[in-house]
């Protein structure tokens, strides 16, 4: 009943191929965007915006990157953290060498560096698959992490090895650095994430996305159909790393505001994002947001939410609970719903559509 598309006629092919062909979806997206862009900045507390929403958006973007290569193309990557790191260091170098160029341009451009490195490390994917490819990407993770510590040029030879995010402005409003308010940083980040999600959705629904999915479903069949595997797989790695790189750049510049960058992009970060993708749903864009929301918000609710409503739970107990819960969730989803939260959302949608007369 709620999702009934009866009476919605499509008169052009373009309308039929739209990303959101149903009116209800379009309304839903509009409501979500209004809430995200207007309601949250106006009503959210500083803590909510800086510790819940900003990390959520950053992780969504990173999960989107990993989902392109793992979910859509079926190539496992354990180097997400390192590719994010490449983006962060590239953005730092670019903005310190060319301080007068707008930081948003550098954030987006830093993805290009990450894409190049991602494509280079994606080369083995033509010959090896599955676990073996995972090990090859693990090598990327360790090698790049080593570079972040051992190449002082990357952090401008600072004695502490940390990167400092300088103040940069957009229309004379500080958007990075300590003086940028969480709301400003959130709005800039939201703009980047919405733009990149729109681009990803168009790429993945088009020829390139279909190529990826053909490779994922059966690469020999895809090859027989005339898809060249090497360019397709490298494209997947490059695109994925581009998104990861931008995610890393926004993480350092709009969320962390500098610090020990090498430590932020370690192997644990790679796994964290892999879990988001698995729990959210492989091969689904909405899954990236759902997975990032679950893995980022549940710990915060456990740690700060329960004490705030009067349920006494020690900070360290929450931390232990969090580990148990995330582990449990991963096992649960792998057994019960391998397609993740995105699949649950689809089932709900179908139920809503036929409600109250299911067939």
């Amino acid at each position, binding site marked *: 009943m709620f999702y009934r598309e009866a009476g919605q006629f499509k008169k052009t092919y373009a309308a039929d191929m739209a990303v959101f062909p149903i009116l209800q979806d379009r309304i839903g997206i509009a409501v979500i965007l209004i809430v995200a862009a207007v309601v949250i900045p106006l009503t959210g507390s500083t*803590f909510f915006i800086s510790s819940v929403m900003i990390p959520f958006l950053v992780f969504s973007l990173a999960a989107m990157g990993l989902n392109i290569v793992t979910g859509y193309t079926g190539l496992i990557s354990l180097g997400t953290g390192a590719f994010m790191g490449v983006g962060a260091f590239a953005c730092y170098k670019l903005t310190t060498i060319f301080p007068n160029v707008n930081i948003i341009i550098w954030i987006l451009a830093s993805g290009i560096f990450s894409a190049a490195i991602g494509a280079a490390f994606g080369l083995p994917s033509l010959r090896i698959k599955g676990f073996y490819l995972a090990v090859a990407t693990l090598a990327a993770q360790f090698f790049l992490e080593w570079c972040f510590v051992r190449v002082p040029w990357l952090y401008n030879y600072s*004695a502490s090895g940390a990167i400092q995010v300088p103040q940069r402005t957009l229309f004379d409003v*500080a958007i990075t650095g*300590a003086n940028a308010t969480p709301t400003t940083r959130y709005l800039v980040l939201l703009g980047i994430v919405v733009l990149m999600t729109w681009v990803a959705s168009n790429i993945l629904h088009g020829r390139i996305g279909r190529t990826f999915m053909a490779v994922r479903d059966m690469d020999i069949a895809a090859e027989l159909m005339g898809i060249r595997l090497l360019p397709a797989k490298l494209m997947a790695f490059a695109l994925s790393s581009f998104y990861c790189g931008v995610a890393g750049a926004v993480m350092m510049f709009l969320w962390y505001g500098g610090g020990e960058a090498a430590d932020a992009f370690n192997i644990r970060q790679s796994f964290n994002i892999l879990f988001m993708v698995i729990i959210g749903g492989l091969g689904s864009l909405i899954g990236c947001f759902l997975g990032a929301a679950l893995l980022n918000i549940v710990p915060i609710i456990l740690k700060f939410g329960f*004490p705030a409503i009067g349920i*006494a*739970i020690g900070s360290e107990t929450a931390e232990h609970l969090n580990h148990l819960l995330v582990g449990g969730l991963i096992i649960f989803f792998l057994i019960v719903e391998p397609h993740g939260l995105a699949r649950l959302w689809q089932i709900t949608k179908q139920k809503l559509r036929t409600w109250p007369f299911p067939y």
Partner: protein
Amino acid sequence: MKRHLTVAALAATTLASLALPAQAQDSVYVPLLTYRTGPFAGSGVHIANGMRDYLEMLNQRDGGIGGAKITIEECETGYDTKKGVECYESMKGKNPVVVNPYSTGITLQLIPKAAVDKIPVLSMAYGLSASADGGNFPWVFNPPATYWDGASVFVKHVAAVEGGLEKLKGKTLGLMHLDAPFGKEPIPVLEALAKKYGFTLKLYPVPAAQMQNQGSQWLAIRRDRVDWIYNQGWGAMNPTAVKEAVKAGFPIDKLVGVWWAGGDDDARAGEAAAKGYKTLNFHNTGNSFPVMQDILKHVFDKNLSQAKREQVGENLYNRGVYNSMLIAEAVRTAQKITGKKAVTGEDVRRGFEALNITDARLKEMGMEGFANSVKLACNDHNGHNKVFVSQWDGSKYVKASDWMDPMKEIVRPLIEQEAKDYVAKDAGWPKRTAPCEKGA
């Protein structure tokens, strides 16, 4: 069960204090960022207990500091920067008087925020060495000594054992360090000293992922015939270094750790052969001091601590106590300057700058012999105070040298240079506007 009750009681009191703003009138809110979980919990738990218990003791014995009750709130960081910053964001609205990040990573994150949020950062002998420059970092304090001071004291100690600074010529000193920003800190000072005194400096980096596998480093140490090793390590790296030194037959009394390589569990790993292991320190161990007796009486006898009774007096527990003593003294100084009971973060920043813990004051606090005097100033947020070498006697650390002054004449110019570089890299870095205290 007892632990759970304590946790429950803690949370309940915190909530109660939040729910009753009237009570907040004469209280100071001291959040403690601690880590009782994660890979570094082994050291974090003892420090957390020490920090808590001293403040709790002040509450129980004196009713707080200068009549203002201390509201203690712990927030778990797991030594993770992301979680640490979350903790900071969650408590910064409750008017904390000071924040203790207890991790170099979190400290680096909070340094730019401190001036904006007007909350002083106390990174006790860790964090960014350059933040000792109060002119450029008015909101950050890192007493009593920096890593650079520590490295210079190590060289002084070597000289003292070998029979004078001129005997250093031709010796080989090794730096074994965690391959991360924290571990690499002492390198510039040791390089400068190597040039000055003519010893050879060899570096043995240990990658964070390989902390428990130091076979190749110790092989290289044997090959290079290193005379002394300075260990700038943390966490699982330290017990491994002690164990490997014993295995490699390295004279254990020539292995000297930075103060963070001085956990009782670090030395215990080497069993009987670890006897003689040395570490730098700026406070004493043991529970014979009146202040420790007060903690036992007012906190442990009332079952208010999460620690075990026998842990009081261990090195890292005492370090937590020392850290909280600095907080309490800064708050007390701030109360004296402003005449207010419920001081704010801005007042406590002034309190830190005017901090002068004299020997008389230490005696008053029951800390005679426990710590040395500490004095900070407007542009000197560290003090470069005296440290000493303590030595593992098989069951505890004992004081093995006199209090030694760091080589301030070498360290200070490096700090000022480094602070200048830091500020130059940050276009929007705020200029110091706060005036200096009179007489400070």
